[in-house]
């Protein structure tokens, strides 16, 4: 957590840091100087690098998780790291070229938008290794390892949980942009709700996504939080009391709308995605029911470690419930509000999905 806090501090509020720096200069400038000779730590020559998409490393989503995973390997494995943040799609190729020029052994790229640029650099530099998050190639490339997730499995649990905890009988979800890595959450969520209805003979309604038609509510980007707020308010007006936004930072807009509703006396809950929102979006922890987690940091660590040990392969890493690559986050403060029966049912479903007894299918699931 220290890591993520520092990252947000460093990148999030430059002005704040500048002021804090000036203040620190005045206030704490009287400390004792350290010994002049500091033992130089022998760092490995191995260099792991990362290039973000336009979301940046402070997106509280896959860029940030991957970045933190890489930063962790810096300490744990004693390797060198390098990072380049892309502000626009135009930065992808220059950033990747610069990483290759900087001598990176493994370069991790985040997101499908970097697919073409990664392919181009990987083909041009066959002796370098690459890994790409959330994207797989139709024809595998010998030096690119795709890191992909069968998120529908964990989202299925979230759907079942939401259906089992809703008071109004209506739950909702919405996405940022209609892309497979987003709709896979919504497919799994929809199936989870449906499975609950089938098992219990209930009729919990889902707003915002129609799995059969593959159509639903999308804010249009991963930036405009006010849209997320507006969507959520609409869902609340239609009777929903649990909302799962699959839109990165736009999810904060949903959180804001739900907090307002809670302040107005409504019993509403939020389901976060990608990371454990209780920890990464603590502003909303009093309404946070659970989170559908993609453990990208761990995957990045694993891939870097494998590559450093000379065990790189281009076989995709697929995160599933079975290998804990995707998970349903703990309930934290909401623990008392989830009935014990429901908890044991969720455990059973998790086991069934992991063992393959219960199939969760989505058009967006990774083909393997």
């Amino acid at each position, binding site marked *: 957590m220290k890591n993520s806090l520092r990252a947000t501090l*460093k*990148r999030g509020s*430059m002005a704040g*840091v*500048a002021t804090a*720096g*000036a203040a*620190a*200069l005045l206030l*704490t*400038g*009287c*400390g*004792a*100087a*350290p010994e002049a000779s500091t033992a130089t730590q022998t760092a490995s020559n191995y260099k792991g690098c990362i290039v973000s998409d*336009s979301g940046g490393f402070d997106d509280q989503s896959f860029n940030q998780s991957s970045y933190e995973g890489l930063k962790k390997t810096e300490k744990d494995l004693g390797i060198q790291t*390098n*990072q*380049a*943040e892309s*502000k*626009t*799609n*135009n*930065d992808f*190729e*220059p*950033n990747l070229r*610069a*990483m290759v020029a*900087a001598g990176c052994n493994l370069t991790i790229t985040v997101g*499908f*938008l970097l*697919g*073409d640029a990664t392919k181009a650099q990987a083909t*041009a530099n066959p002796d370098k290794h690459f890994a790409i998050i959330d994207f797989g190639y*139709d024809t595998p490339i010998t030096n690119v390892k795709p890191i992909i997730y069968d998120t529908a499995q964990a989202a299925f649990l979230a759907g079942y949980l939401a259906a089992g905890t809703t008071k109004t009988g209506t739950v909702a979800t919405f996405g940022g*942009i*209609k*892309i*497979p890595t987003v709709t896979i959450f919504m497919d799994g969520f929809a199936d989870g709700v449906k499975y609950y209805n089938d098992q219990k003979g209930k009729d919990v309604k889902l707003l915002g996504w129609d799995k059969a038609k593959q159509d639903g509510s999308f804010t*249009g980007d991963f930036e405009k939080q006010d849209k997320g707020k507006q969507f959520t308010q609409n869902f609340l007006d239609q009777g929903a009391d649990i909302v799962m936004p699959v839109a990165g930072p736009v999810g904060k807009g949903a959180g804001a709308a739900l907090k307002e509703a809670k302040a107005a006396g409504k019993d509403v809950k939020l389901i976060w995605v990608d990371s454990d929102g209780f920890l990464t979006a603590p502003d909303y922890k009093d309404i946070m029911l659970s989170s559908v987690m993609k453990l990208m940091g761990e995957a990045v660590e694993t891939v870097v470690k494998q590559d450093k040990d000379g065990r790189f392969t281009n076989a995709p890493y697929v995160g599933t419930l079975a290998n804990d690559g995707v998970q349903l986050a703990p309930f934290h403060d909401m623990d008392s509000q989830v009935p014990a029966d429901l908890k044991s049912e969720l455990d059973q479903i998790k086991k069934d999905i992991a063992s393959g007894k219960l199939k969760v299918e989505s*058009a*967006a699931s990774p083909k393997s």
Partner: protein
Amino acid sequence: MTENTEPRHSAATDPDPIPADQATAPELEPLEDDEAFVTSLDTAGGAMQPSAVPVSTQSGHLGAPEESESVLRKIFTGNGMVTILAVLLALILGGLLIALTDKVVGTTAGYLFARPSDFLTAVWSAATSSYVALFQGAVFNPHGTGVAGQFAPLMETLTIATPLITAGLGVALAFRAGLFNIGAQGQIIMAGILASWVGFALHLPVGLHLLLVLVAGVVGGAVWGGIVGVLKARTGAHEVIVTIMFNYIALYLLRYLLDTDLFQRPGESTPISPILDPSAVYPLLFGSQYRLHVGFLLAIAATVFVWWLLNRSTIGFEFRAVGANPKAALTAGINVPRATILVMTIAGGLAGLAGVAQVAGTEKVLTDGVAATYGFDAITVALLGRSSPWGTFAAGLLFGAFRAGAVQMQIQTGTPIDIVLVVQSLIVLFIAAPPLVRAIFGLNPRKKKTATAGASKQAATTGGAA
């Protein structure tokens, strides 16, 4: 009745000034001296006291000692110097910001009073190493492999500058005609949509294909800009609101299209178009080790074209006249609506060229980030270049250098890219406020004038201009 006849009478006398203007127009047009013309227009607009002597000849009437002093002052208070000082000031402030956000500086500040040298060294090294990285990423990298590698950063700068220059020219041209064209973003997007579609959906022979991509892109941008011109000329709708809305329309149209099978790769559902055919992309200028493509030559050509258009052509004369004072231009017999439509069309076409540079030059695919922030950066570039063609060209290069250098700044020193953008914004801020920079460096001509008390004719005119 008598009151009614009076206007008629004056209307009858009206034809008098028009032939007079028509008579002067041929006199003005062959005038090679652009400056003299602009000043005469400015005075006609009532911006300053009309002077009996043309400005260009005024300096010749002055005494020798005064002249040398005024030349010095001109250099130090001129626009060029202010631009340089603005960049300098921004670099200093940016350096301080970089230092303040640096980790080493932070730790050494902890024992500032115990060993201040550590702190100062850290500040110095944080700022300088960032700027060295900026330079190495933008102009020349001595650590590059071979001469080719050493000049790779410069090539990258030129590559990134290409769309900035052409889109900036579009904005600058509209500025000169008095129109605030905020719509370069939308024009780039429309050009990108059309050009990329021609690029990946049609399969044509080499040469013809690229030509068609180019035409499709330029036409796309020109139409998108031209519609704004028509709306402005025919209905009086303000071009700022219209261009902003057209940006949104273009962006959401693009997002919609990327969600349809027409613009997606077969069998995939991600919002990214197929890669353009090899025959549809700009050839690289110096081989595959650089990204620099033929689009840069087109950017140079576009700059020459805009310079010629503004300074040598009748249409450009009309544009500038409309920009200086539309009512006066109308009275002088210039077709203002036609000039408005035409200038927006050409501006859109220039922005369209930037769109083509994106899809056929660097990106080779269409995504919803096809225009990046170039359409808005173009406004800054045009302002920074003071809306002159070569000024815009230079400003585009400067911005391209910043963008290219930002990559190395991030990778070599870990300076966040946001800081680079802050420095860029500071430069623009200072350039947009020349009196501020003059005041900081004590170059305010008005103050100097009162200090020397020599109220010469020259000082009076510079004071008035500032």
